């Protein structure tokens, strides 16, 4: 089968998947992307095996960050036109199936004008008017667009969802974020964690340039961007209390200062939520290592030396990092919110506490740090959870079946 993947970046969500489908099924996998990622970069094997076509995207259309919210649908339409024109210019691609991703709508709206194959949408998320995602942190100062943005941000998603043949979400909670009327069109297929990369075991006790002495407890926090939706501010409060209680703990934070979701710049008036958080209290920064964004190999090494991984997301798309941490055998202390509950059963493969209860989170964290060995079974079970439900070998076959089913079923229509 000939599958065309469409995504902003490569390898991102689909690179490894394409490689696996080529290896396992002998499929031809092509990619139409705006850019090659710098973190992580595509592996040589990916570049040799997969056809990657770059979109001739105008600079102003490359990123949606910075587009004023009323113009996001227009930005999406321009992306749709670019993808349409690119496919028109490449008749040799002739896909049997298109699989497209778009955090704010996959740019497939005009593709029925140029191809007649089925289209599958990666249904990442449907924003709510309130009570989850970017509308959840009402504890932060109000941001004016927050009242309007959620009422129009789903327009690209809806437009493509109506037209596509099928969709899939990585988790059940993500699928259930969509209006009920579309849920019958969406299957749940997780993409697959690279368990050969993320696994328990010894690793150098090093965090960036900082050597970590034996006997020092390592608490990790990982997020693509250090922002409120992922609870970076709450983590810092917990870390502050842990640091006061124990002198043998170091906090290693991986993540960039970019803000990907929500209104942190407006909440705080600062371009960096991290800097704003740090300015709110007198943190002993000698106890923290901020790595910035890290490559997968660095992340895997870091997670292997973690005594406690803290994950304090608001109800939003589950981060891969929490599953990477579980695959690495970490003891995970996470926010007790529905998307996390889907993967973590408290007391069995991790620990859950209320998101805003800093005292309770601190108490639980200190229990783990007091006696890591007692909690180690949680990490082992977490690893087993990933092996059984979320690793590539478990996830790729049903996902591949799904692609084949849709391609066969809808090609005949």
């Amino acid at each position, binding site marked *: 089968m000939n599958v065309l993947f469409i995504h902003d970046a490569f390898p991102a969500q689909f690179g490894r998947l394409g490689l696996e489908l080529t290896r396992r099924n002998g499929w031809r996998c092509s990619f139409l992307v705006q850019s090659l990622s710098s973190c992580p970069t595509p592996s040589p094997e990916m570049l040799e095996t997969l056809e990657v076509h770059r979109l001739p995207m105008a600079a102003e259309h490359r990123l949606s960050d910075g587009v004023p919210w*009323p*113009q996001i*649908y*227009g930005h999406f*339409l*321009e992306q*749709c*036109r670019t993808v*349409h024109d690119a496919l028109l210019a490449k008749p040799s691609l002739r896909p049997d199936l298109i699989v497209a991703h778009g955090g704010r709508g996959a740019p497939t*709206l*005009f593709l*029925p*004008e140029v191809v007649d194959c089925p289209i599958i949408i990666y249904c990442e998320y449907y924003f709510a008017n309130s009570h989850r995602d970017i509308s959840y942190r009402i504890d932060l100062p109000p941001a004016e667009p927050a*009242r*309007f943005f959620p*009422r*129009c941000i*789903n*327009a*690209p998603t*809806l*437009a493509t969802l*109506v*037209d596509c043949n099928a969709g899939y979400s990585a988790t059940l909670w993500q699928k259930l974020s969509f*209006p009920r*009327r*579309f849920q019958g*069109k969406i299957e749940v297929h997780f993409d697959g964690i690279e368990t050969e990369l993320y696994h328990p075991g010894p690793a150098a006790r090093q965090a960036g340039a900082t050597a970590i002495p034996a006997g020092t407890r390592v608490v990790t926090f990982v997020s693509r961007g250090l922002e409120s939706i992922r609870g970076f501010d709450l983590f810092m409060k917990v870390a502050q209390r842990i640091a006061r209680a124990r002198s043998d703990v170091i906090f290693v934070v991986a993540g960039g200062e970019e803000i990907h979701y929500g209104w942190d710049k407006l909440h705080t008036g600062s371009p960096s939520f991290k800097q704003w958080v740090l300015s709110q209290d007198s943190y002993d920064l000698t106890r923290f290592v901020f790595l910035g964004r890290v490559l997968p190999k660095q992340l895997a090494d870091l997670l292997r030396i973690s005594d406690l991984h803290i994950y304090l997301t608001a109800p939003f798309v589950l981060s891969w990092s929490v599953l990477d941490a579980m695959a690495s055998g970490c003891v995970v202390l996470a926010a007790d919110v529905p998307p996390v509950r889907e993967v973590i059963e408290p007391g069995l493969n991790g620990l859950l506490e209320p998101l805003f209860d800093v005292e309770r989170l601190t108490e639980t964290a200190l229990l783990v740090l007091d006696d890591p060995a007692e909690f180690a079974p949680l990490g082992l079970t977490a690893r087993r959870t990933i092996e059984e439900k979320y690793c590539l070998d478990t996830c790729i076959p049903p996902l591949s079946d799904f692609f084949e089913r849709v391609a066969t079923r809808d090609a005949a229509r």
Partner: protein
Amino acid sequence: MAQDPLHVLWVEPNFPGRLGAVADWLVRRRGYRSWFYCHTADPRASWPQSVGSGLDVQIFGVGGVARESAVSWSRTLERSLCYSYGCWEVLEQRRPRPIDLIVGRSADLGSALFTPVYWPAAPVVNFLDYFYHAHRHDLAAEAPPETAPAYFHWRRSMVAINLLDLEQATLGWTPTHWQRDLFPAEYHDRFMVLHDGIDTRRFARSSWHASRCGPRLIAGRVIPDETRVVSFVARSLDRLRGFERFLTVANALLRARSDVLCVVVGDPIVRRGLDVDFHNRDYPAHLLARQSPADPDRLWFLGPVAPGVVAEVLAASDLHMAPSRPYPVARSVLEAMSAGCVVLASLTEPHREVVAPGQTGLLVDCQDPGTLARQALAVLADPAEYRPLGDAASALVRQHYAQDVCLPRLADKFTALAATNGEGP
């Protein structure tokens, strides 16, 4: 707790637009208190009588791209959001309250999307007219091969405000099943299909249709009994409503019969953006420059006229023609039927829903002007033979599409909805 009578916020880009007559009826006949928020308003002469007596009209401004005279296809939702934001701003300033129900109509422009930001507790009913399909319906099916891709991009992109409105709405509302079925199947159960009603008093079965007794008056001129009046009524004299088809047939009728008078009502300027070739142009002038009327004295263009004049024309009509492309049934078709006209319309799905061919009107394939002209001549040759169609049409409208039939049902629905406090129908 909903109050009886209800306090309703109506939002539509223009007043009275489509919802104005409904709001007026509910104020006059059910005692509603209504605020009508709009960006523009027609001249006061066309406002319904309850304005100032239970129906308050409030204008809101728009900013950004909505102030531009032409908006590119990729910015149509942005324009809608400007309307919605403009409406919200004035709501915040004027603070009408309490509100039991919000009824909105975007009409492709947007407006009501942010009303729940101001008043989250009220259920929202969105009146939806049309859902674009890239290559089907209206003029799309006839788009020539050289049509610019942007035309189809635009059509595909236009779904956004409708989808957002539907997602926000407690209930979608559309006048006909054909219109409901244009929307994605996932939304069909979210719709109430109910016509917003014809004013059957204004468009009552005329004495001419009842007994072929005069006098007949059109725009102050007396029409002799022996004259056969052929009528065409549309908001705009455009291709969507098949004006060029009508003109071709009208010329054939004028040539074939010396007693025919063709009366055309509607704005000569094409107002709908759907016809990208003639949008904002004088389409009749374009046609007449290429095709002179067989007898200009017997082809009257009345322009956009008051409803009272439309009623006069329909009351005097011996044959009402509606050779429209597939598009929501023109209000004038139902008004003509209400008035007892013999209606000759295009054989399309939307017309099939309201006209039973051979019983309440005539439907023919309008792509062939010969067929249309032959059927028209047959009616004009023997009006008495076709009179039962007009009588049955009038009865049908009184029974199913009259304001006094449709709007009490609407009021019941609104009362039930308001009692749910926005928790769904």
